[in-house]
């Protein structure tokens, strides 16, 4: 299994990515390769650059140095165009910490607006696909409601369905459970796990270490804008190679 992955063309390649927020060096010489079907979990202390990393992949954040290749689209730091951002975003889905559902639309409209107006799908097909994914996240009954009528966990499941409706080759998750009440975290994690079982390529920024252990192929640990350690979950959690990761795990896993 590992061999086939090693030979498949990567879906994400980041080479020597550097990013600054004003004078603050937010990403430092970041190199990441993600093969199709891989599940990557990114973790690290707050301010370590993990959110910036995933937001750079779909060009929500520009970067100043390095090369990026996502789903076959090459982007150089000196030539970040709107066309490239659009092309990448039509192949990559994203789930945000704050859900970011469109409050003036029903759940169903939230799901079909991207396919219809961004991808040129026919309304009927988009609706069918939307109902399919809505059933998948267990919210068929809520299709005609507005986001504000749903619980946080339900909203985040709608957001996941919305990301899937554009048929992405890769889905980015930026702390998808961080703003949920504790009793709603599991329903979202279960949805994500079922997605992982289906072979979706995922990059997940999260503090849910149990999820990382169960689902990830690789876990990336970041601190101060750089990648400190990358390993398969067993090794990552049981034999951390760096003192920083050891102390981080000590903080997160101690309950």
């Amino acid at each position, binding site marked *: 299994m590992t061999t086939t992955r090693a030979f498949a063309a990567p879906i994400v390649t980041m080479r020597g990515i550097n990013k600054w927020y004003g004078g603050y060096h937010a990403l430092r010489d970041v190199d990441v390769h993600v093969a199709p079907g891989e599940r990557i979990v990114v973790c690290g202390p707050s301010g370590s650059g993990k959110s910036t990393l995933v937001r750079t992949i*779909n060009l*929500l954040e520009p970067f100043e140095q390095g090369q990026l290749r996502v789903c076959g689209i090459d982007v150089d730091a000196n030539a970040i165009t*709107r066309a490239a*951002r*659009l092309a990448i*975003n*039509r192949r*990559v*889905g*994203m789930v*945000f910490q*704050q859900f*970011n*559902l*469109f*409050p*003036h639309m029903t759940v169903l409209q939230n799901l079909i*607006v*991207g*396919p219809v*107006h*961004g*991808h040129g799908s026919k309304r009927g097909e988009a609706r069918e696909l939307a109902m399919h994914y809505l059933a998948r996240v267990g919210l068929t009954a809520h299709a005609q409601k507005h986001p504000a009528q749903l619980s946080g966990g339900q909203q985040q499941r709608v*957001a996941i369905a*919305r*990301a899937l*409706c*554009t048929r992405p080759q890769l889905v980015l998750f930026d702390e998808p459970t961080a703003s949920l009440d504790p009793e709603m975290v599991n329903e979202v994690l279960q949805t994500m796990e079922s997605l992982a079982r289906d072979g979706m390529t995922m990059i997940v920024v999260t503090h849910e270490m149990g999820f990382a252990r169960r689902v990830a192929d690789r876990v990336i640990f970041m601190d101060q804008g750089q990648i400190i350690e990358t390993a398969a979950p067993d090794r990552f959690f049981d034999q951390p190679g760096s003192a920083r990761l050891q102390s981080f795990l000590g903080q997160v896993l101690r309950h």
Partner: protein
Amino acid sequence: MNTLFVRQTLIEPRAAPPVAVAVVERWRRMLFPTPAMSVLSLALISLLVVAGWRFFAWAVVEAHWRGGSSAACPGDAGACWAFVIARWKPWLVGNYPADQLWRAWTCFAAFALFWTWVVRRSHAASLARVLLGFVLLPVAFFALLIGGGPLPLVVPTQWGGLLLTLVVTLATFATALPLGLVLALGRRSRWPVVRWVCGAFVESLRAVPLLGVLFIAATLVPLFLPRGLAIGLFARATIAFALFNAAMAAEVFRGGLQAVDRGQREAATTVGLSDFSTLRLIVLPQAVSSVVPALVNIMIAVIKETTLLSIIGVSDLLGAIEIGAKSPDWMGESNVLTSGYVFLALVYFTVCYALSRYSRRLEVQR
């Protein structure tokens, strides 16, 4: 440690106890809670009573109701409603031809119907309704009033009074709203030149008084226009209103656009929407519906500002009343003009207070 407390049966919800304060007691607490407040209450109430009685005496007890000239209202003791009764029709429609008046009444009726419909629909305003009320309706009114084709032409110089006020207000909105939106978007443009031009336009118009803009439109603009391109006073005044209020609306829209969360744009980007689609489908609907109360407030301001038209010689409602008071029949008695002004205030108060209540309700609903 031992378990200290366990509840086995849940408490069912109960109704709150009734408020057992008598009406008299409630009023006493409202008006006379402390000695100082009692003094203040008494002072204000007596002021209200005296002023109210004086006005009532003037407007009802000593008022003159009948008559066809200022001879009916001798002295300056009571109100001269005879003047209002004799003259109200031209105040509403100006010199609009009598056989074509149904066109003017249709506009008034459509306007009233539209607002009744808007107000009775409970949930918040949508982009479509804003466009219908503020753009489509004014254009339709203008076409109906001016005529052409099967309808005889009635030029704007024949319009007057409240009809003119209504038309100027709506025409101002029909042009100022789209222009204001464009200016607001322009101020957020990627291109610096667009940002500067829009910013300079908005800031310079916000920094001058409307009356100054009106005078420029009335007196200065004709001097600059090439020979043969004469624009009527009415049109010039309307354009001045439109440009001035576009700057006001631009600031309102800018606030609305800023209030849309950044995450909304990002989410729209990640589902594959282009920048234009994001603006049209995600940002604008949210921005516009959040500023409708503020837009209604601009509308109230525009309605009141139309009285400035009479200063540059366009006979709006105020102008029509003043002309009426100067006519040979009604000259010479000061209470004639005063009664006209009170009537004017009443008309403006009715319209603006209704709109203001509506805008307040929209704010509460959000």
